[in-house]
């Protein structure tokens, strides 16, 4: 498949888990832990999918999302947002900012991988 995914996440154990799950399905996984430089990373890499954590050092997921959506190039980029904050307001904010899919941690592996597949299909 050779599809690129950028995993923006600062928790090493979650990176480990997601990396395992994505690469098992044939994804080419890149990881990035710093919020402040995440947008640059996306611009440079132009991934097919972004898995974005909400709470990141430097810049939070919502701001990164808004910045990406403001760029026409990434207006339709599939972005899956994951958050551990678990508050209803965050989902609203994310949807307003143009998130493709919003999931609350902890998630089941099946769930998150289904979501990834859906997003890719939708994008095609």
């Amino acid at each position: 498949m050779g599809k690129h995914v950028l995993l923006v996440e600062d928790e090493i154990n979650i990176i480990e888990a997601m990396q395992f799950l994505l690469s098992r399905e044939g994804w080419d996984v890149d990881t990035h832990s710093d919020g402040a430089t995440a947008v640059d990373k996306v611009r440079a890499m132009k991934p097919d999918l972004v898995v974005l954590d909400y709470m990141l050092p430097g810049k939070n997921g919502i701001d990164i999302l808004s910045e990406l959506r403001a760029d026409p190039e990434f207006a339709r980029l599939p972005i899956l947002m994951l958050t551990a904050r678990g508050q209803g307001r965050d989902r609203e904010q994310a949807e307003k900012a143009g998130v493709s899919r919003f999931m609350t941690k902890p998630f089941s592996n099946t769930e998150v991988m289904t979501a990834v597949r859906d997003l890719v299909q939708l994008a095609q």
Partner: protein
Amino acid sequence: MISVNQLLGVSLAYVAFLFAIAFFAERASIRGKGSWLRSPMVYTLSLSIYCTAWTFYGAVGYAARSGMEFVTIYLGPSLVMIGWWWVLRKLVRIGRAQRATSVADLISARYGKSNLLAIVVTVMAVIGVTPYIALQLQSVTLSLSIFSEPGQPDSLSQAAAAFWVAVGLVLFTVLFGTRNLNANERHDGVVIAIAVEAVVKLVALLAVGVFVVWGVAGGIGPMMERIDNSTIGEWSMDRSRWAALTVLSAAAFLALPRMFQVMVVENEDERHLQIASWAFPLYLMLMSLFVVPIAVIGLDILPAGSNPDLFVLTVPLAEGQGGLATLSFLGGFSSATSMVIVATLALSTMVSNHVVMPVWLSTQGTGAQVSGDVRNVVILARRASILMIIFFGYVYYRLSGGGAALAAIGLISFVGVAQFLPAMLGGIFWRGATRWGALAGLIVGFAVWVFCSLLPSFGPDAVLSAAVFEQGIGGVSWLRPQALFGIEGIDPTVHAMVWSLSLNLAVFVAVSLATFPTPLERLQGAQFVNIFDHSTQARGWDAALATSEDLMIMAQRILGPADALSLFRAEAKRQGLTGHLPEPTQGFLQTLERELSGSVGSATAHAMISQLVGGTSVSVEDLMAVADESAQILEYSNRLEAKSAELSRTARQLREANQKLTALSVQKDAFLGQISHELRTPMTSIRSFSEILRDTDTLDQAEKTKYASIIHGETIRLTRLLDDLLDLSVLENGQVSLNLENGNLNDVIAQAVLSAGGAHTTRLRIHHMQSDQDVPLSTDLDRLRQVFINLITNAQKYCVAATPELTVEILQQGGGLQVVFHDNGVPIPSEARALIFEKFSRINDKDGSGAGLGLAICREIMTRLGGDITYEPRADGNAFIVHLPGRVALAAQ
């Protein structure tokens, strides 16, 4: 029968007697032995100048003509006296406080010391009182004519008699009233003389009455019968006339210049009013006691057509009682003379103070530039005024032909002076009254009086033609003097009174409301209306601007060199200065103004001093008084302001509370978000890896072990997080109970190092600098140890030096102790330092094992232990310093 010449002799002897009394009284007063002159009884008797010849002779005539109606003339003043504490007390208090010398002075003072108003009142008073003086002349002349024997008519023609009586009264008044000038305008001699005259007239009238009842009628019983049988008992009473006349006499009692003179100006002590309040009505009652009997007997025994106004004389004469008749004559003479003297005195003060002196001063330049001795001018002005006023009376007497009944003339005067009442009472009870209101009211009321009462009194075709009476001015029917606005059929006196007073009052109120008072008016208004609230005179002078010499020059001109010098000397002495020039203090200026106002009136005195003080008629004190007047408004506005301040304070508090709540809510959200994050993150790993382990068959052993370890580590992290949260929650809520123990600080540190895994188990090398001696302490050792462990494990986790080291050292600092944890790691960035003790703040948390609660817990524990924990960056690393308070250390020593 007594001849006229005998009578004149008796009269002269009587006058000489009065003069002697007055003379000795004055002398006693000057020597300071005159306190008896100012007793309440003398005050009460002096009030009896209300009872003039009109009362003495006229009351009987009045009764003979109109029955009991004469009582109204006594009723009005009695009501005023009985209700003294309402109007009279205020009037006297104000008059004394303001040093008012006359009605004109009082009204002018009230309305901003307006001289225009003083002049108008003076002119009106002179015109209003002139018929009254004429009345006295007429009564004396009439009474004299009774004694002229029928056989030798015109031995003394009536006109000539009136003339000589007038001349006599002028001399009398000049001698009595203008012998000296003093500041308070009091006349001890005059007062005592009129008190004696009061006794004489009462005794005379009572004597005639007793003679009539017991000598003529033969006792009380028969007297009553004769009264019942006479026409006097039959006359029904006209209610409107009764009410009007009672009001009128009350008004005149208050507004008559001579009444003001004895009641206010000559008043020595306000408390005298209290006694006069019952004694004077009693006097009036005695005066009226025998009026009806005398009238009834007079009508009975004298031939029809006899003048009832002279029954008091003619009844004794008809009964052959020459002595009694002479006494009666003296009584009438007393009534007439006392009235004329006091009325003329009061009027001459007004004329000289408000008309002559201002005019004279304005021709001479003002203030200190006045040349010559003003005193002579004042005395001359007074004497000229006396002459003029009595002359006016004489002219009026001649013009009116002496025809009208005494009572009718008296009532004309009453209505005239009653015009002062709205301005007077309005001035002392209503702060809204203004100068222009008073002036307009006075002028309108007076004009109506002149047209409806004064001019008609000369009779048709004398001044007003009969056509005017019939058809009105220029044939305008509603301008008839006795039927204004076409309302006919009212008694002329009531008509004049109702119209003049009601128009006066209406115009006074309307113009007052439409005009705005000047500052001085406002302040005087406040002084008058609130007289009982002001203990002292609030108005004063800005003394600094006047020089004593200027004042001295002016005072000498007006008071006379000797009086002025003694006044200035006394003040200088009082101030502790030598010589005759005192400091021109405010108090002294007030005293001086008062002294001057006795000679030239308050308006002029005020004007003169204000010239010297720099032309400012409103001083700081004035302004204070004005402020005092508007205190209510200020207070109200202050209250409003306070209220609004309170409201905005409440609003601010609410806003702050709201902000706090919002901030708290944000904090709570952030906190919940943090906790959720901290809990869900390890759970995410646990769930994900446990699913991987469960669902993936292809995992090798190494992978399985790795993922299981991750799960294990995350559960430990979760447990620790929960422990920390609970711990922090307990600490923050203050629910923690401290377990105090005695111990040694070195031991506690050693235990902490051991608990953290020992000094050598991790890469971090820990140097515990043991102090030489034991450091005993008494505190919760477990909690303190927890703090130390936290700090050590933080160093283990975050110290990133090549060879990480931690030095633990105890320092004595003041009374307390410091335990310094000094590592050689990278110093915490300055922007993060402020937050390190806050919950969930993590710096360089590479492995994510910390929840950021450790230092927050440390701070909470140290606060509970009474100490503190601080951070200091060091050149080679970081230092966390645990502060232990002195009592922790000392307690164990």
